[in-house]
C-alpha cells in the first residue's frame, strides 16, 4: 500500500469532486451553447446542479434492495475511478493510474447501474441496458486497440506516464491523428451522444435504463453520470491532448473536447443499435488496427 495515505486519499476525493463540479458546469454551459445554436436562450449554466439537487431532495420510489444497492455501487465505482484520474499535475496515486483500471473499475459502476435498472422490473430498462452493453462492445474494442498500441510503444500504461511523454514529444492528436479520430468516435459512443444515444432514446424506450428512477436515486445517477463523463473526457484529454500543465489548460482542453462532442451530437440523428455495432466494426476498428499497425510495425509517430 505504497500510495495510500490520508493526503493521497484527500487529493483523490478532491479530484473526484473537482471532476463532478467541472463536468456539471461544462454540461450546463453546453446546454446554453446548444440552446443558442438552436435559437433558444437555453438554461442557466448551473441548471445541471439545480436538477441534481432537486432530484436528490425529492422522495422517490424504490423497487427493492438491488435497485438501491445498484445505484450505490454505480456511484461508488465511478467515484473510485475518478479518484485515479490525473488532472493536470495533480495525481492522487502516482504510478497507479493504470489505463486498465479506468476501463475495468469504470465497468463496476456501469454494472451497478445496469443491475439497478434491470432490478426495477421494467422491461424498457432492461432493453436500455441491453443496448448500452451492446454499444459497449462496439466502442471499447477500437478504443482499447489504439491504447494498446500506445502502451506498447511508450511502454507505460499509466495515464500520467502517457501525459509526461506527450510533454516531451508533443500531443498524440497531432502525431497520431488516426488514433485520435478513432478515440474521439469511441468517446462519442461512451458519452452516449448522438448518433450513439440509442440506449437512452427517450422517445423510443422512455430513457431506457433511467425509466424507473426518481428522487434521490435519480439524483445519484445524475452525479454518477457527470463523474463518468468527466472520466471519459479526461481520458481523451490526457491521452491525446497531453493533459495540461496546469488546471486551467486542462479545463480548456476539456471544455473543447466536450463541446465538440456535443455539437456533433446535435447535428446528427440516431443510429439503431445494430447500426451502431456494425458502424464500429467497419470504420473505427479498421482505423484503429491501421493506427496500431503503423505504431507497432513502423514506429510512425511515436519516436
Amino acid at each position, binding site marked *: 500500500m505504497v500510495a495510500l495515505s490520508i493526503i493521497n486519499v484527500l487529493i483523490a476525493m478532491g479530484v473526484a469532486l473537482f471532476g463532478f463540479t467541472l463536468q456539471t458546469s461544462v454540461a450546463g454551459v453546453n446546454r446554453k451553447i446548444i440552446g443558442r445554436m438552436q435559437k433558444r436562450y437555453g438554461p442557466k449554466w448551473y441548471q445541471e446542479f439545480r436538477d441534481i439537487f432537486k432530484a436528490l*431532495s425529492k*422522495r422517490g420510489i424504490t423497487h427493492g434492495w438491488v435497485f438501491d444497492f445498484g445505484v450505490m455501487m454505480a456511484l461508488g465505482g465511478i467515484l473510485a475511478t475518478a479518484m485515479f484520474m490525473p488532472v493536470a499535475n495533480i495525481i492522487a496515486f502516482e504510478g497507479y493510474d493504470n489505463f486498465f483500471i479506468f476501463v*475495468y473499475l469504470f465497468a463496476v459502476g456501469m454494472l451497478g447501474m445496469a443491475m439497478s435498472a434491470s432490478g426495477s422490473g421494467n422491461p424498457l430498462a432492461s432493453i436500455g441496458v441491453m443496448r448500452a452493453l451492446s454499444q459497449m462492445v462496439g466502442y471499447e474494442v477500437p478504443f*482499447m486497440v489504439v491504447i*494498446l498500441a500506445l502502451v506498447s510503444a511508450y511502454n507505460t500504461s*499509466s495515464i500520467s506516464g502517457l501525459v509526461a511523454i506527450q510533454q516531451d514529444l508533443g500531443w498524440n492528436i497531432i502525431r497520431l491523428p488516426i488514433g485520435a479520430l478513432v478515440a474521439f468516435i469511441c468517446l462519442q459512443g461512451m458519452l452516449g451522444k448522438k448518433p450513439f444515444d440509442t440506449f437512452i432514446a427517450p422517445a423510443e424506450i422512455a430513457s431506457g435504463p433511467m425509466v424507473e428512477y426518481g428522487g434521490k436515486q435519480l439524483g445519484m445517477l445524475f452525479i454518477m453520470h457527470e463523474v463518468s463523463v468527466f472520466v471519459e473526457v479526461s481520458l481523451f484529454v490526457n491521452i491525446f491532448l497531453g493533459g495540461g500543465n496546469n488546471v486551467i489548460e486542462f479545463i480548456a482542453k476539456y471544455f473543447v473536447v466536450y463541446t465538440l462532442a456535443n455539437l456533433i451530437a446535435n447535428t446528427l440523428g440516431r443510429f439503431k443499435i445494430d447500426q451502431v455495432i456494425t458502424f464500429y466494426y467497419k470504420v473505427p476498428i479498421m482505423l484503429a488496427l491501421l493506427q496500431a499497425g503503423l505504431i*507497432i510495425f513502423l514506429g510512425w509517430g511515436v519516436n
Partner: protein
Amino acid sequence: MTITMIVVGLMALSLVTYVVSKMSKGLGSVLTILGPLVALLFFLLEGSGIASGSSIGILQFGATKLGWFFSVTMLIVYGCVAFFNPYWMKKLVHPSAYNMLYILSLAGTIGMFFAVDFIVLFIFLEIAVFASMFIIPFGKSRNAAVVYFAMSTFGSFAFLYAIFMMYGKFGSFDISFVLGQLATEPTTAIWVIILMGIAAFVKLGIFPFHIWLPMAHGNAPDTFSPILSGGLVKIGAFIAIMVVAIAPTYEVLKNSYEVMGLPILIYIVLIIAAISMVVGTLMAIKQDDAKKLIAYSSVANAGYIIVGIALNDQLSLSGAMMHIFAHAIASAAAFLSIGAVSYRTGTTKISELGGMIQKMPITYTVYLISIISMAGIPPMAGFISKWLLFQSLASHGLMFIGAAAFFGSVGSFLYVFRPLSGLFLGQLKPQHNHVKEAPIFMVVPMVILSGISLFFGVLPNGLLNFIGKIQVELGVEGITTVDTAIMGNNGLLDPTLVFINFGLGFVKAFIIFMSLSKSRKVGLMDTYTAAEFVYDPNVYHYAKSYYAPIERLYEKHPDIVALYKGLVQRVVDLGRLLQFIFFKTKPGTTALFIVLTIILVLWGEKIW
C-alpha cells in the same frame, strides 16, 4: 501424509463411497464432501513441500509446486461443489455410481498433477476423463457424454502418440528427462509440441475442439457442471503449461520463422486462442440456457489461459495461472448458483425464470460476485489475471490478439449480464412464488467460493508470490510484488488500493443515499408502462432473445457442430458402404474378393 497416500486413499475412498452409498445414499454423499476436504486439509497443512511418498509399482509421484497449485485449486472446487451432492441424491438415476465416480475423477486429476512418468500421467488423466464421462449422462443428455468422451479421447490419443514419439526417441517415460531431451531432436520435438498442444486444446475446450463444453457442461447434472468447468477443463491448462513451460518449446522453435518476435507456431496458437475468445463470447451471448452460457464463457476464458501460457513470460504465465485459479473458482460459483436455482425451480433456461433475487438473494449475490470475477472487473480475482495478461499483450504489441482479448473481455460483460438480468432480476414468475432460498448447506460453499474470489481480488499477493515461485520452478522469471502492489511491465497495480478506493466511493454513495429521505417501496409491477395496464408478470419480463439485435448480426454464422456431425456422418456412410460391399449374402462375391485380393497382392511380387 504423502501424495501417494492421498491419491491411493482417494481411489480406495471411491470404492468405499460406492459401498456406503449402496447402504445409505446420504452417508455416501457426505463422504464425497469429506474426501476432498480432508485431502485439501492435508495439502494445506503440508504445504507445497508435501512429501511425495514411496512408489507403488509404477505409481510414483513427485511433489511440484505446480502440481500443488493445481491440486489445491481442484480440491477447493471439488470440496465446495460436493456440498450440493446430498441434495441431488434423489434426483440422480444412479446415486451410488455418481458418488463413486465423483471421488474417482478427483483421484484421477490429483494423481495426474503429480505424476513423474508420462504413462502414470496418462493413466490418471484417462481415469479422470472416464469417471467424469459416466457422470454426464446422469444429467439431461446422453449424446453429450459420447461427444465429450470422443473429443477427450481424441486429445488423449494425440497426447499418447506424443508420449510414444518421445519414447521412441529417448527410450523413457520420465517426464522431466524426456522433455529435457527434446531440444536435441527438433523434428520430433515440433510434432510432440503440436500433438500435446492439441491434447491441451481439447481438454481446455479451445476452438475448434470446444463443442463438447456446452454439450457436457450444459447437460451434466447441476452438481457436476461446476466440476467440469471449474476443475476438469483445467487439466488442459496443466498440459499446456507442461508443453510450453516445462518442455523447451521456445528453444526448439528458436530457429523457426518469427512473427512479431514470436515463433510462428506460438503465434498460430495465439491466433487459435483469439478465435476461441471471440467464438466463445459470441456463442455465449446468444445462449438462453444459463449453463450453456457459462460453458461457452469457459471457452472464451480458456483462450485467455492459452494466450498467457503460450507467451510464457513473467507476466503472462503468472496471469494465466492466476486466471486458472480465478476462473476455476468463479465459474464453479456461477454454476453452483445456477444449480441452486435449478434445484429450487427445476430449470436453467433464462427465459423461463426471472426475479429470482426476491426469493434467493444470497444465491444472487454469489452469482454477482462470480460474474464480476469472470468478466475481470475489480475487485475480484479475475481482474488481476486479466490485468497481467493485458500487460503482457501490450508489451508484446500483439494488437490482433489484443483486439480479440478486448472483445472477449467486453463481450463477457454482455453474456454474464444476461442471466443476471433475465434470471435473477426482473419480474418474478407467479409459479415461482413459493420458491425459497437454497438450503443452508448449499449456500455455505457458494459463499466460501465468493469469499475466495473477493479475497484474492483484494489481496492477491500471497497467491502471486507463490505463483512466482512456481514460475521460478518452471524456469521463468517470477512475478514481482511490492507490498500490495503488483509490478507490471508498464505499470503498477495495487488491488488493495483499488478496493479501498471503491470502498470509499461506495461509502460516500451510501452516506449520500442514507442521508436523503427514505424512498417508498413499490412492487415490481408498479412501473412505467406508457399508460398500458399490464397485469401478467410473464409478459412483462425482458428475457427472451435478450441480445436479439446483436444475435441478428451473426445469426448466419458457420456452425462448427455441423462440421463434426458431417464428419461422423462420413464415418457412418463409409461403414455402411463397406458393410454393403463386403457382407453380401452371396458366397460367390466373397470368393471373388478372395481371388481378386490374391491377384492384387501377387501383382508385382515374384511368384516363386
